[in-house]
C-alpha cells in the first residue's frame, strides 16, 4: 500500500457508565483499533450494535477525542502536526439520521453553503457551489434549495447531507449507516450516487453498515468489529468467500439466504452480544464461539496475517501457523 490517506493508530475510547471508585463502570467502546486507508479505496466496517463502529467513525473524524492513540492524515498526526480545521475540510462525515443532522431552521442551500463560509469562502461563491452540489446529488436547486429539512423526504435529506459533506471538496467521507434508514428502492439510488461520486472525485470512503450485502457491494476492503475490537480485516472478496475469524463466519451465516430452497437451518450463534461494559476476558468472542479452546478464555489473540492484506485476530490461525 502507498502512503495511507488516513490511518488509525491504536485508538482507544472508553465511556463512563456510572459508579465511583472501585464500582466505576466503563464501556470499552473502542479498544486498540488500528487500520489504514489507501487513497481511493472504500473500507466497509461491519459489526453488531455496540461493537464500536460508530465510535470508531467519530474518533476518525475527531468528533470524539481518543483516550489514547492517534489519527493520521497523509502521515501527519491530526492535532499536533495538522490543525483540526484543515483536517475537517479533508475528512467529512454523513450520519444515519438525515433529519437530526440538518439544522431545522436552515434552508437546504444554506446548509450546504454554511461550512465553506465558516472557512472563509465568500457568500456568493459558497452559494454558487452549493447550487452545483445540490444539482449534482439530484436535487434541483431552484426547487429544493429554499426548502427546510422537514419539507424533504428521507432520501432527499440524505442527498443534501452528502452534498454538504462534498462542499469542502474532501478526500475522505465517513458514512456512518448513511443509507440504513432509507427504504430499499431509495437506498439503491443513494448507493448509485455514492459510487458515481467516488469515481468522479476519487473519493475514499469509510462505509459503516450492519447490512453485509450492501457492504460487499460497495467496499474494496472490509473490517469486522466485535465488542470494540477488530476481529478481521481484509479484501472484500476473500473475507466474504473465506472468512478467517469465527465471528465473521457467523455474521455471514446469519445473513438471510434469499433462496427459498436454501433457507438457513441453524442459527450460527446463540444469545445476544455481551455487554461492552464488562467484556469477556481473553478473546472477547470466546463466550459465543463454537471453536473456543484452551487459550481463548485467557489470552487476547494477536492479529495473524492470513492472506494478502488479510488479517484476523483468532487463536485458531495461530494454531494452524504453528502446525505448518
Amino acid at each position, binding site marked *: 500500500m502507498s502512503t495511507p490517506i488516513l490511518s488509525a493508530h491504536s485508538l482507544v475510547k472508553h465511556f463512563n457508565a456510572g459508579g465511583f471508585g472501585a464500582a466505576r463502570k466503563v464501556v470499552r467502546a473502542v479498544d486498540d483499533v488500528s487500520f489504514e486507508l489507501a487513497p481511493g479505496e472504500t473500507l466497509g466496517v461491519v459489526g*453488531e450494535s455496540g461493537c464500536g463502529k460508530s465510535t470508531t467513525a467519530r474518533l476518525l473524524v475527531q468528533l470524539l477525542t481518543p483516550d489514547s492513540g492517534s489519527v493520521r492524515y497523509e502521515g501527519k498526526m491530526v492535532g499536533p502536526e495538522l490543525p483540526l480545521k484543515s483536517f475537517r475540510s479533508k475528512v467529512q462525515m454523513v450520519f444515519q439520521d438525515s433529519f437530526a443532522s440538518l439544522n431545522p431552521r436552515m434552508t437546504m442551500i444554506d446548509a450546504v453553503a454554511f461550512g465553506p463560509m465558516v472557512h472563509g469562502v465568500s457568500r456568493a461563491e459558497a452559494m454558487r457551489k452549493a447550487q452545483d452540489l445540490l444539482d449534482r446529488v439530484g436535487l434541483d436547486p431552484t426547487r429544493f434549495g429554499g426548502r427546510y429539512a422537514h419539507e424533504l423526504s428521507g432520501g432527499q435529506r440524505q442527498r443534501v447531507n452528502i452534498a454538504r459533506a462534498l462542499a469542502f471538496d474532501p478526500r475522505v467521507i465517513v458514512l456512518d449507516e448513511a443509507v440504513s434508514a432509507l427504504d430499499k428502492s431509495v*437506498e439503491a*439510488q443513494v448507493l*448509485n450516487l455514492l459510487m458515481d461520486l467516488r469515481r468522479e472525485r476519487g473519493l475514499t470512503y469509510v462505509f459503516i453498515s450492519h447490512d453485509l*450485502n450492501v457492504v460487499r457491494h460497495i467496499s474494496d476492503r472490509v473490517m469486522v468489529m466485535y465488542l470494540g475490537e477488530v476481529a478481521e480485516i481484509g479484501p472484500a472478496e476473500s473475507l466474504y468467500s473465506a472468512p478467517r475469524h469465527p465471528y465473521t463466519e457467523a455474521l455471514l451465516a*446469519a445473513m*438471510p439466504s434469499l*433462496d427459498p430452497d436454501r*433457507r438457513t437451518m441453524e442459527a*450460527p450463534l446463540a444469545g445476544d452480544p455481551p455487554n461492552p461494559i464488562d467484556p469477556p476476558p481473553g478473546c472477547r468472542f470466546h463466550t459465543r464461539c463454537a471453536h473456543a479452546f484452551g487459550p481463548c478464555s485467557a489470552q487476547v489473540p494477536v492479529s495473524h496475517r492470513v492472506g494478502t492484506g488479510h488479517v484476523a485476530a483468532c487463536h485458531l490461525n495461530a494454531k494452524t501457523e504453528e502446525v505448518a
Partner: protein
Amino acid sequence: MTQETVHAVTPLVRVQDLSVRFAGTPPVHAVNNVSFDLAPGEVLGILGESGSGKSVTLKTLLRLLPERKTKITGRVEVDGNDVLSLQGRALADHRGGVASMIFQDPALALDPVYTVGQQIAETVMRHEAISKSDAMTRALEMLELVRIPSAKRRLENYPHEMSGGMRQRAMIALALACRPKLLLADEPTTALDATVQIQILLLLRELQQEMGMGVIFVTHDIGVAVEVSDRLAVMYAGSFVETGSVRDVIRDARHPYSKGLLAANLVGAVPGTRLDAVPGAPPPLNALPEGCSFAPRCAHAEAACHASPLPVWTGADGRWARCVQASRTETLAKAEGQR
C-alpha cells in the same frame, strides 16, 4: 353462511376488497382493495416499504386502528368470524385468543411495570378460566417453549432487565400463550442484530410448524421474508401488486416494482456495479395517481397504465401481478407453466 361442503380447505383468513381510509383533508388512502386468503398453517409474507400499508393491513385483522379516525370497507374474516363487526367481549376474545400479534419493538409493546411472567399469566387468565398459579405455570412453559435460558428466573424479570433478543422471545411467548390460530408479525426482527435476527426467525418457523398456526409476516426485508414465508405478497402504495409462492416471486418477479426491490436487495448484483435502482419515491397516500400507483416511477409505463381498472396477469398456484406489461405475457407464461 352456507359453506358446509367446501372442496378446498376453508381459509383461516379471508380478506376481500379491504380498503382503509384515515380522516384528513384529503383523506389518506392507506389500503386499497386488498384481497387475499390465508390457509390454516400457512405463512404469508407481506413485503413493502414504509407507508405501503402493510402494517395497517395487519392491524385491521386485530381492529387495532383508532375507530373514529378510520374508515374500513370490505370484508375481513378470521376463523369464520366477521372481524369488522366484532364488538365488546367478542372482539376481546378475538384479540389474543384467535389472533395475536408481535411487534417490532418489544420494549414498547411489553408493559414496563409488570414482570414478564405476570403479563403472560394475565393474558392466559383473561382467555381461559384457570387459577393464577396455573397461569404462572403456563407462563413458565411458554418461556421454555421460546427457549429463554433459566426461564424460571426470567419469569420474575421486568422487560428492561432483558436483552433485545430475549425481550422479543418474551413477546412471542406472550402472543402464543393462548395458542392462537393466527399470528400476526409486524417486522418482529427489524430492530435486532443480524445474529439475533436469524435466531428469532428460526424460532418462529419452528413454533409455526409445531403449533400449526397461520402466520402473516410483514417486513421490508426480502431476505427475512424468504426465510419464513410460504407465499409472498408485494405491497406498494396501499395495494397488493403481486403475489405467489416465495419461489416464484423471487425467481421470476413479474411486477416492475418487485423486480426493482429485488435489484435493490442486490440479488445477483456484481459488486461495485451500478444498481438497477427504481427512480423517485412512492406517491403520497392522500393523492394517489389514477391507474397504477407505480406508473410514475416505472420505466415501462405507457398510456394504459394510467387508467383503471388495471389488467391482472395470472399464473399457476394463485400467482398474479397487477400490471399492464405483465398481463401481455399471459399466453407465454401459461405455456411455460404447462411444461
